[in-house]
């Protein structure tokens, strides 16, 4: 590594001091300036291999740190509220839309014999929670006006597809267990498969 002692004008190989007058070298702009930068021949040869090694190490370290920085934002375990809930017996619910667990678990329990299913109350437009309007017999989202049938199928407004349905099953005691982290969707207008018919999307009553 060239050191500052090289920042001096040329001297004889014996190292004897030579106070070379400035005129002997093409001086930079200012006249009478100190002797200028050394001729390149005086510098010891740069160890290209070592230099490349160090720069590779530096950039490599920084690149590794960059990827670590990105990965850092994705924790491995999450502590979020429980999504599995027991909501009672099928006989607890009336025919049609039940709002009993809308506030607690964001679901409407819909009983239309021979089926019972749970609509997950998240508007498929941009995620607001719609309202059930019994007088108009439809779900209406207050955010942008999406409208859904009592079965949760979209028919007006910007909603692209019906509201999803949460997984339901009966436990050993016969109570309904709903899991709102497992949702069944039907991309109706795109002609997608109707997952509302999948096992787990409804229970038979």
């Amino acid at each position, binding site marked *: *590594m060239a*050191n*500052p*002692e090289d*920042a*001096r*004008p040329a*001297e004889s190989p014996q190292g004897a*001091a*030579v*106070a*070379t007058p400035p005129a002997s070298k093409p001086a930079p702009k200012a006249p009478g300036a*100190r*002797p200028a930068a050394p001729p390149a021949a005086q510098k010891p040869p740069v160890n290209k291999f070592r230099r490349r090694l*160090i720069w590779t190490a*530096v950039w490599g*370290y920084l690149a590794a740190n960059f990827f670590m920085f990105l990965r850092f934002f994705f924790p491995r375990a999450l502590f979020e509220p429980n999504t599995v809930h027991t909501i009672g017996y099928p006989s607890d619910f009336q025919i049609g839309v039940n709002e009993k667990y809308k506030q607690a678990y964001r679901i409407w329990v819909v009983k239309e014999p021979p089926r019972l299913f749970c609509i997950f109350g998240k508007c498929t437009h941009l995620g607001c929670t719609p309202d059930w309007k019994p007088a108009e017999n439809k779900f209406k989202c207050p955010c942008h006006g999406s409208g859904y049938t009592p079965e949760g199928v979209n028919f007006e407004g910007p909603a692209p597809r019906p509201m999803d349905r949460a997984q339901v099953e009966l436990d050993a005691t016969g109570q309904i267990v709903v899991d709102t982290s497992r949702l069944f969707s039907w991309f109706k207008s795109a002609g997608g498969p109707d997952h509302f018919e999948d096992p787990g999307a409804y229970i038979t009553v």
Partner: protein
Amino acid sequence: MGGFNWQQLWEIASAPDNVPIVALLFLAPFYTWYAFHQARENDRLIDQLEADPKLAKTHHRKTFPWRPGWLKEIHTWPYLMRMELLVAIIVTVILTVWSLTLNAPLEELSNPNLTMNPAKAPWYFLGLQEMLVYFDPWIAGVLMPTLIIVGLMVIPYIDENPLGSGYYTLKQRKFAIATFCFGFMVLWLVMVFIGTFIRGPGWMWFWPGQTWDPGRVVFEPNRDLPDLFGVSSMPVKIVFGAIVMALYVAVVGYGLHKLITRAGFNKKIYERMSVIQYVVMQTFLVVMLLLPIKILIRLLFRIKYIWITPWFNV
């Protein structure tokens, strides 16, 4: 008593938060040596120049090589910048290796009803925590830190010695360096060391190699100086303590005065000082010396307070 307990020593030294003090045990002496080494070289040059006035006129006055015609200044880029890059790389490497191999400590959840034994302050405050043994909290925790900070800030304003500005030297700044090293090494770093390695459970004194036994029984009742002299009534205690303190200030102040005005060079600097500078310097030095004296009389003679009043104790 068993033999030297290496296991105990290793446990203390390897505790993650004690690693910096172990590092300091190497770094402080090393850098002191490094500085003094350069100082000695400079002092040799100074001796040379003082012996030879003609040389003093033509010499470039540094221990580093230089010839007429050489540049006195060099470009920041690349010479300084790449030194900085190198230092940054080395520090990063040290930090990364340290972080990969040693985990930061995390004890159990805080519990206001259970104090650990020993309950130690962070290592950089252990010096102050050690002071709590010898002084009341308002002195050790409030007055002393204030005096340290103000004392440090006052240094440039009471230092009338123009020599040694910008280079290492010992012989031209004996007093200043001795005082600072005393304050920094002895009073601060040694206290940190004691707080880390010597003070164990119950803040009891354990020599290196002794097992940290929380159940060790000690019987070291303290006595106060007035009691030693048979003084029992409060008004007399106040007066007695005041007299002792005044005597201390007088003796130490006088001793310091003699020291400062004794040698030729010191006297020369003393004559340059104004009254305010001199008084400030004396005040801080006297208070500073009170520390080791109080520590010694406590450790050796179990004396707790010198000056007792209804409002404060020293």
